[in-house]
């Protein structure tokens, strides 16, 4: 990815110099190799921009605020980030004219939690060579394959194509798309008895600390004021006081983003307790696919999505499966 980082910086410098954009939205190098932070750069500090296998943060949502400002921003979007971008453009949250999208290649983002589980702890440095990560740690050198420690969303990669881009940095060494059964776990959950499924979700959701990270990072959660923060709503809640509230927050959120969720996986990436929130979203995605035909939110920036569209052929979900849904 070093070659890609270099190409990004060259391109960004040129676009800043000719006045096409006046700032760049990317990732800034952190304390370690893996804690890059979304940041806005100008020509002066562009040297701090980093692009490697730990730039997980999806920058699309920042464009809601950035595109309200003066001037035009250059946004670095990985292929999967462009789906979120399109969806936000579709929902009139982003002013498309104020953004210059530079599509950048991605070979998958590594998950530090998975590295830790594999015993790669006390990380000091990580060198990337092809698909191999070599970590220097406080406890010696450790190596692993990036494919074994990818974020869940990267295992279910949507592919190398950018759904929106004003220009693209060419991928000179593309990697093979991973074969992953995206809906495998959803199907497993469907096959469980209601009691087993309830037990699965209870043990996951009971870990929730209501930090709202999943909501605040979610590109589909773009309400100016969330119902759960609104005292006048009657359901405002800052803490889960019982099991019902633990469930409700996540179920309501999943319903609200249904049909608009691109499966970018940010919710699961940021959850401090490792709750597989993407499974709720994928259940909705799979049901939409079954009931209304294959649909990928964010594949374009203008079509109506199934749940806000009406055709005479529309199914009645309760009826198709004998009311057992």
């Amino acid at each position, binding site marked *: 990815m070093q070659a890609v980082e270099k190409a990004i910086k060259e391109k960004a410098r040129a676009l800043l110099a000719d006045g096409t954009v006046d700032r760049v939205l990317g990732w800034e190098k*952190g*304390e*370690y190799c893996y*804690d*890059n*932070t*979304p*940041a*806005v750069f100008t020509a002066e500090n562009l040297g701090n921009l980093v692009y490697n296998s730990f730039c997980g*943060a999806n920058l699309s949502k*920042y464009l809601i605020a950035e595109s309200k400002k003066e001037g035009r921003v250059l946004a670095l979007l990985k292929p999967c980030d462009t789906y979120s971008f399109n969806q936000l453009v579709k929902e009139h949250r982003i002013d498309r004219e104020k953004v210059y999208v530079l599509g950048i290649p991605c070979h998958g983002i590594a998950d*530090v939690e998975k590295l830790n*589980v594999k015993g790669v*702890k*006390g*990380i*000091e440095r990580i060198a990337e060579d092809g698909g191999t990560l070599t970590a220097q*740690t*406080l*406890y010696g050198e450790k190596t692993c394959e990036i494919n074994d420690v990818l974020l869940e969303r990267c295992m279910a990669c949507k592919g190398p194509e950018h759904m929106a881009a004003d220009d693209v940095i060419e991928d000179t060494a593309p990697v093979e798309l991973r074969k992953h059964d995206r809906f495998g776990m959803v199907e497993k959950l469907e096959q469980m008895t209601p009691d087993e499924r309830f037990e699965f979700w209870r*043990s*996951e959701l*009971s*870990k929730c*600390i*209501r*930090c*709202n*990270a999943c*909501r*605040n*990072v979610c590109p589909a959660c773009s309400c100016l004021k969330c119902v759960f*923060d609104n*005292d006048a709503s*009657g359901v405002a809640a*800052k*803490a*889960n*006081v019982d099991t019902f509230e633990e469930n409700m927050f996540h179920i309501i959120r999943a319903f609200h983003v249904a049909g608009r969720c691109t499966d970018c996986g940010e919710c699961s*990436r*940021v959850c*401090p*307790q*490792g*709750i597989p929130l993407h499974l709720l979203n994928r259940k909705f995605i799979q049901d939409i696919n079954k009931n209304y035909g294959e649909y990928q939110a964010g594949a374009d920036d203008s079509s109506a999505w199934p749940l806000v569209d009406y055709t005479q052929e529309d199914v009645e979900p309760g009826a198709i499966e004998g009311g057992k849904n």
Partner: protein
Amino acid sequence: MQKIAMDRISEFFSAIAAERALYLPLKKKGAVNFGKWEEGADVDLDALHTVKSPKGLFFPQSEDLVSFKMQGKEISIDAPDAPDEKFAVFGVRACDARGMDILDRVFLSDPVDTYYAARRENGIVVTLSCSAPEETCFCSVFGIDPARPGGDVSAWIAGGFLYVKALTEKGEALLSGLSLLEAADEAEIGPAVEQVKAVMEKLPLKDLDLTGIDGSATEKLFASEKWAELSRACLGCGTCTYVCPTCQCYDIRDFDTGKEIRRYRCWDSCMYSDFTRMAHGNPRKSQVERFRQRFMHKLVYFPANNDGMYSCVGCGRCVAKCPISMNIVKVAKALGAEAKE
């Protein structure tokens, strides 16, 4: 000092749990948090940190304060009894034990928080020495020794044994009731302590410099131009505050159950948009101001009011858990660099 073989540790837990509730790090669905021990519990003493700190055992995320009910013209007011569960918490790391000292300064100062005080009184803290610190650790910056973790009882794991040593009367009382412990020589934990020391020397944040960041520089730090840049990517979520062992702000709210009003308090987060909102509005209107508040509180206001004591213990949870990887270390470095200019 006393010891028990690690392969008998569930007997040790069982003996403690026979007398009082026992909370310790339990693994559930991949995440390790403090939970109540029972036979067969999935105890995880290898995890360096629990996701949530043990502060919740003394200052729960949510607790009822009072309830009001009206029947006709009768108003009844019920306050819950003071917490009376006798408990021990095992496996508290040195950083989290220091976190308790910080919370004590807040909740045990006048006016004393009776709920917190009752839990502190009823609870016995058994700490556990770290064996494998990670790159996010910087407790030594605050003078904390992870191999001398404090508490009512300190514990070490070395050479297949769990070693315990009482440091307070409460600790003595706990251990004196445990006949399965055998006497041990303090020298036996020597190699384990040395090993931790060696790792501490290698930690990348061990020399984090807080020069110029303290209670005496309030106005200068408050006015720093770095805040806008540092807070730019902040999502305004509460992860850092909720995993923090020292964050102690809470909100008090009323919940209308339809039959009564339950007044409860719950953890609040200075990162949230309604934090410090009052009748006239909110003095902190933007995320820059909210973000600044968190770090000013930990590194400037708290030491100003508490003899120079920072309200950060260097546990590294926020470093590891922030969704956008912005944290107190990056803030301290940026402000420190500015202070030197």
